[in-house]
């Protein structure tokens, strides 16, 4: 099953590679991994999207907690949470296709950021499911380039992931 794990990580050199190294050394899947600073300059927040059986996910969480650089961790998939990812996608846009791509972008609440005679760059935000749906709707033939940020997530309600 797919899990979204949020980690508060000590903001120090090498912390990222400890997490990345753990996943490769123990053969765990990484679908995506994002990391950026938080409001607290001593902490980074990392979001990992992974998948595995319940036993594997349990081990992943335990092994992550064991890393000395990991200050706090939450398996967001265990709670009610919001997942977002941004995708920038460059598509061919010519003739009648220009209008169709524009319409699809509106349906998916995307924005067109760059326009040329033959192409658009579109920004779409959403969860993994929505982004894949948009890619499918555009059709592989029209897509010139895809850049996805990887997912980030946060729990609903007042309860927060804090040190």
């Amino acid at each position, binding site marked *: 099953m797919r899990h979204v794990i949020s980690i508060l990580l*000590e903001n120090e*050199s*090498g912390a990222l*590679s*400890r997490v990345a*190294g753990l996943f490769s*050394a123990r053969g765990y899947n990484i679908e995506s991994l994002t990391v950026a600073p938080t409001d607290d300059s001593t902490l980074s927040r990392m979001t990992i999207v992974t998948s595995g059986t319940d*036993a594997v996910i*349990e*081990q992943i969480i*335990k*092994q992550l*907690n*064991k890393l*000395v*650089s*990991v*200050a706090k961790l939450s398996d967001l998939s265990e709670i009610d949470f919001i997942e977002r990812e941004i995708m920038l996608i460059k598509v061919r846009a010519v003739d009648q296709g220009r209008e169709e791509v524009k319409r699809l972008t509106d349906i998916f609440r995307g924005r067109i950021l760059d326009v040329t005679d033959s192409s658009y760059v579109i920004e779409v935000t959403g969860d993994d499911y929505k982004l894949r749906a948009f890619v499918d709707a555009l059709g592989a033939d029209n897509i010139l380039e895809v850049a996805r940020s990887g997912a980030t997530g946060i729990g609903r309600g007042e309860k927060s992931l804090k*040190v």
Partner: protein
Amino acid sequence: MELSGGEVLMEALKEEGVEMVFGYPGGAVLHIYDALYQQNSVKHILVRHEQAATHAADGYARATGKPGVVLVTSGPGATNAVTGIATAFMDSVPMVVISGQVQSRFIGSDAFQEVDCVGITRPCVKHNFLVDSLENLASTIKQAFYVASTGRPGPVVIDIPKDFTTPGITVPFSYPKEVEMRSYSPPTQGHPGQIRKAVDIILSAKRPMVYSGGGVVLGNASEQLRTFVKSLGYPITQTLMGLGAYPASDKLNLGMLGMHGTYEANMAMHECDVLIAIGARFDDRVTGEVDSFCPHAKIVHVDIDPASISKNVAVDVPIVGNVSQVLEAMSEQISATEKRADPADLADWWAQIKGWASGNCMDYEASTTEIKPQSVVEALWRVTNGDAYITSDVGQHQMWAAQYYGFDKPNRWINSGGLGTMGFGLPAALGVQLAFPDEIVACVTGEASIQMCIQELSTCMQYGTPIKIINLNNRYMGMVRQWQEFSYEKRYSHSYMDALPDFVKLTESYGHVGMHIENPADVEGALKEAFALKDRLVFMNFVTDQTENVYPMIEAGKGHHEMRLNPARELA
């Protein structure tokens, strides 16, 4: 007090109570060695290879329970240390490794003797640090010792760029009294609810089995284990790493389990209805095929590392905590309740176990013409009254030492169980002997393993360590040969040892005593003679039976109930 980085390090080691450091100098640690030269509280042991420095510190740590300390230079100094760091990591040995690094402004420039030490060691340390300033050096050392020696122990590397140890560049020194690390809080107390649940299951057992591991030795919980097991009268088996935590001579002890464990221990594992795992990690050499592991058992697992729980085998009642505290709590609850396992069930269970044990699975064919390696270990036990510190290398001799030297005390059996590092035995013995100069220390090895760190005979000469080396020389990498015999139709691909040195001459050239023993009748006398030389290192080269195999054995993919027994025993 204003100190340079080198002096900060020396003062910090003194504050940590470090009595000796195992190391080898080089460019990036010259400043540190200069500070070392100008102080008297920390002794330095100069090895001949950095791998040996880590193994010696490891042996010291396993015997004393205190962190072993290593000092190496950058580049090859650090990479040579990696095998020993990984060895300590796999067996959860507390160790602090200080490595020099090129000057901070040269990091990343492929400078002379530069490697990314923190990167290379990351997968085989509990934690590591690249020191970022002279100001943070003291607190980093404090954290390193704290992390290495608390929770599930392990090696910690501190990589120090050379410019932070420059003489004359100083900082005000004060060593932190406390450590506060928000991202590291080792567990201590087991959860009372889980302990209650466990005790309930333990006292409801019909066919109970206690399986204890290296965590009991590391957690200094041997006394608590003895009290717990004796109050219950349950059978106990230990892993290779756990030997000595429970006395081998006690009647409740079924010996070692796993790949080369006893028949009765493995059968009891297979048939038990409640398994009490204490400070053990369900290693593949212990479990055999996991699908057929303890098929009838409810499993209680006590371990300080949550990640060890349900990693290889799913357990019913996990208890995360300090092993000695949890054992004490369980013993208290047991003495507070009237409830006990049904004595009739227990008697039936013991009768079944005695039946398995009656086959004497450790019997081997005696010989008057060839030295049987097992007999050498048995004689070693007699000559040392079963009370020596025994280190070993890796292979058949390691298993025979584990099987035939009955350890009654913890911290006495020192071997590389997890990583299986050949070359470990001699430097580890050096570390043990330096920690305990008046104790008997023997290294059981083979002619293949000993050659991997044999240069340390020189270090042993320099520091006058009277180690006794028991070389079971069968002219083969015996364990490789054994697997080739069983699984590769006797195609002995590169498992022979040709062009061996004359070990007696070699030993003598280092200034030690060498002995060569070929005749079975001479074994015990030779051992007595060697151990009588109390202040000399003696290298005993026993020419042993080339064809002897380690039995019993669980082969790959088999369960505990499918052991291969010694064919000689079946004939008898």
